[in-house]
Structures are given as structure tokens and as C-alpha cells.
């Protein structure tokens, strides 16, 4: 590496670490953890910088990119750093890579991967129960795409396989780790949703069931047919 004379940073070592991180993250094709950057430094100089110091250096690097209006950014995905183009240039990249059109997952794969992500480790029957449809195809497809993997076996009858999401899933969804997943709405919140009418959870739990059953019984008796509807 050449002398970093263009920037007169107060702390030369920090600036140097920033450039080393930049080089490693640029060259890597998958997320680079701060530990690996520290490890590379140790292999060359015999001194391993603290991972917190590495993280600070990467932050400085990003600040410098932002300041200079660079097309690049360092993103934190799947627990490591990746160099990526800024979204401002997305139209150009899409035009450039027109043959490799990248799209989001289909609806069924998206719902399946969501259940696996939030419920992991989860068995296939559990996934099927939530969606009400067979998960054979979706799980097979997600396994092929490396977005999910078998992470063990359940103690339940038949010892079904347990599925979980992979590092690639975090990378491809721009998540740093599983805690970075958007919050799953609580049932109570759903019940306040205007989509569902005014009857609320309390009603659900301690409903006046008898009254409701009576209503239901009366209705079909008065009709000419219980299963026909004009």
C-alpha cells in the first residue's frame, strides 16, 4: 500500500486501518466481519486492532464516501461489511446488468421465508399450518437458493427436520442479523386494525357464546336451503 499522504489525518494509524478495511471489503465477494479484518492486520503486522477500532475505521470510511459523494457505501449485512453501490445509481446498474434481472421472491416464497425467519428453528408441518398450504415446493426452492438450511431435527414424533435462515438470507435482505428483522405485529395491534370490525380481543376470549349460538341456529332453520345462496 502506498503512503497515504493525500489526507493529513491526525491519527495516521487510524487512517491506515480505514484504507486496509476499504481494500479488504472491496476485494471480498461476501460480507467481511471486523474480526477477519483484524486477523488480516495481525497476519501482516503482528498486531491485531480491537474490533471496536475496526468498526470505527469503517464508519470513518463511510463518512468519507458520503462526504465526497462517492457511488460506493459500506453496508453491514449478515454480520459483516459489504461494499455496494448507492441506490442513486440503481437505474444505471439495472440498465447495465439488464440480462441478469434481479427480482424479489415470489409471494409464496416470501411468506414461507418470513415464517422460517421469525419462527426458526421450525418444522415443515409448522410452516404448513401457518400458511394452510403445502410447503414442499417453497421449502425445496428456498433450500436450493441457499436462503434457508436444515439446522437440526425436532424431538417431535418422526423427528422432522428443523429449518432456519442462512447468512445469505441476511445478506440478500439487507439485514445485519436476525435482531434486525422488522418487528412482527402483535395480535393485539392486529385487532385494532380497521380491517377487522369492532369486536375486540376481550369479546374473543369471554364471548357471550350462547347468544351467538342461538343466532346461528335460527338463521338456517328459516331459510329454504342451508347451502344455497342466490
Amino acid at each position, binding site marked *: 500500500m502506498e503512503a497515504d499522504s493525500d489526507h493529513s489525518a491526525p491519527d495516521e494509524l487510524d487512517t491506515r486501518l480505514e484504507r486496509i478495511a476499504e481494500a479488504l471489503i472491496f476485494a471480498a*465477494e461476501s460480507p467481511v466481519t471486523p474480526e477477519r479484518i483484524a486477523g488480516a492486520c495481525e497476519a501482516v503486522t503482528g498486531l491485531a486492532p480491537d474490533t471496536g477500532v475496526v468498526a470505527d475505521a469503517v464508519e470513518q470510511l463511510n463518512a468519507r464516501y458520503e462526504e465526497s459523494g462517492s457511488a460506493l457505501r459500506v453496508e453491514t449485512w449478515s454480520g459483516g461489511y459489504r*461494499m455496494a453501490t448507492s441506490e442513486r445509481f440503481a437505474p444505471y*446498474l439495472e440498465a447495465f446488468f439488464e440480462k441478469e434481472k434481479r427480482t424479489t421472491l415470489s409471494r409464496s416464497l416470501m411468506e414461507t421465508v*418470513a415464517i422460517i425467519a421469525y419462527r426458526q428453528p421450525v418444522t415443515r408441518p409448522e410452516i404448513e399450518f401457518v400458511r394452510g398450504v403445502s410447503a414442499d415446493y417453497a421449502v425445496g426452492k428456498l433450500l*436450493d437458493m441457499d436462503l434457508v438450511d436444515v439446522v437440526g431435527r425436532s424431538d417431535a414424533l418422526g423427528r422432522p427436520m428443523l429449518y432456519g435462515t442462512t447468512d445469505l438470507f441476511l445478506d440478500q435482505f439487507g439485514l445485519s442479523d436476525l435482531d434486525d428483522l422488522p418487528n412482527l405485529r402483535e395480535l393485539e395491534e*392486529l385487532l385494532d386494525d380497521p380491517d377487522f370490525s369492532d369486536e375486540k380481543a376481550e369479546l374473543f376470549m369471554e364471548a357471550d*357464546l350462547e347468544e351467538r349460538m342461538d343466532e*346461528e341456529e335460527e*338463521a338456517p332453520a328459516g331459510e329454504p336451503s*342451508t347451502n344455497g345462496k342466490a
Partner: protein
Amino acid sequence: MYQVQLQDFEGPLDLLLFFIKRDELDVFNIPIAEVTDEFLAYVRAMQEIDLDGVGDFIYMAAVLISIKAEMLLPSDDDEAGDEEAVDPRRELARRLLEYKRFKEAANDLERHQERRLQKHTRGAASSQEKHYETERELDLDASVYDLATALRGVLTTLPEPDPVHAVERESYSVEQQQTYVLERVLEAQTVSFEDLVRERSRPFVIATFLAVLEMARQRLVTISIAASNQDFYLLRPDAEAE
């Protein structure tokens, strides 16, 4: 006459959520009879185009019918404690809400992936290529079901702006089927359910089944389950019923 709009539903629960939203139904007080009818109409339309997913819908149709049947059965008035009684629709309501949570989570994840796709990294193009390869390989291993699904895909992407299927109104009523079942039982003393509905359409089978449940409730017939669990028999309760 039902007009069923063939939209892309992710499954039976998704379809039920659609009904609930469209008709502004209360998820805890679903009018099971109406919803079941419309659900069955959709299933029939679906059978014409989809081989693969229809089984999941038929399963849910059975769940709806069993809930409907359960609600027809008299509740034991002796057990005064109404806290004991559980609305048969409760489990379904729970499942619908749970599914809705994950539908929303899938939307959130989709937005994340969209944003991520705006950001390009090195090596992404080649790894993407690898995925396309496995996809092609998979397709060669495909079964006849995948072929049918593919055909359905082709059919649904045809430039038909608004694919509307006309579904005939169900032509069997439970009352009608009760008469039919009674005739058959009186004639033969014992009839297996399979014989009653052999080579008949699904609505016929379902209406007959509901008729049998209703008659069992009124003690017009007795039901005996076959050892194989695949069928059951209807018997006249005794001679004096004649």
C-alpha cells in the same frame, strides 16, 4: 349464479382473509354458512385450472363444513356454564390472525429485499447466475404436477384482462339430499356412504354429507363407521321408524 373472480390467492387462509376484508366481516363472528358456500364455489372454479394447490383448499373446505356442522348440533343446555362452550370458529379465527401476521411480515421483508436490490455488490451477478442454473436443472426433474402448474401459469398470463369464471349455482340442497338418503336407506336397510355418492360431483357429495349429519342429529339414521376408516354406513335406527 356465482361470479368468481380468479385472483391469485396464496392459499385457503388467504382466500378467507380476502372474504373477510371484502365483506367487512368480523373475524370472530364469521357467517360460516355463507363463507363456506362461496369458498366451495371458488374451489370448484379452481379445480378447472389448478391440479396442485386444490388439495389444500379442499382440506379447508372440510374444516369449514365441520365447523358449520358443529354449529348446527344442539348445544347441551344442561351444562349451564356458558364459559365451558367454545365457539367452533375460534380456532379458525386464531389461524386467520396468525396468518395475517406473517403476510404482513412477508410484505416488510419484500420491502427490505427491494431496497437491497437497489444496491449492487461485486460477485452478485455470478452468484445469481448459479441460481438460474439450479432452477433450470430443477425444471427438468419436474413432475406432471409442475407441468400442470406451468400450464396454469401460461393460461393465467394470457392477455385476458379480467379472467372471470362463471360458476353454476350449487344445484343440491340439503333438504333434497335428505329425501334422497331416506329413500335409499328405506330401500336397502344399510347403505354405505360411498354407494350413496358414487361417481357424483363434489357439491353432491358435500350436500349429501351435510344431509346425513342433519339426519343423524334428528335420529332418522344411525351412522356406523367402517373398520377401514375409509367409509361409513347408514342404518335405519329400527323398524318402527318406517
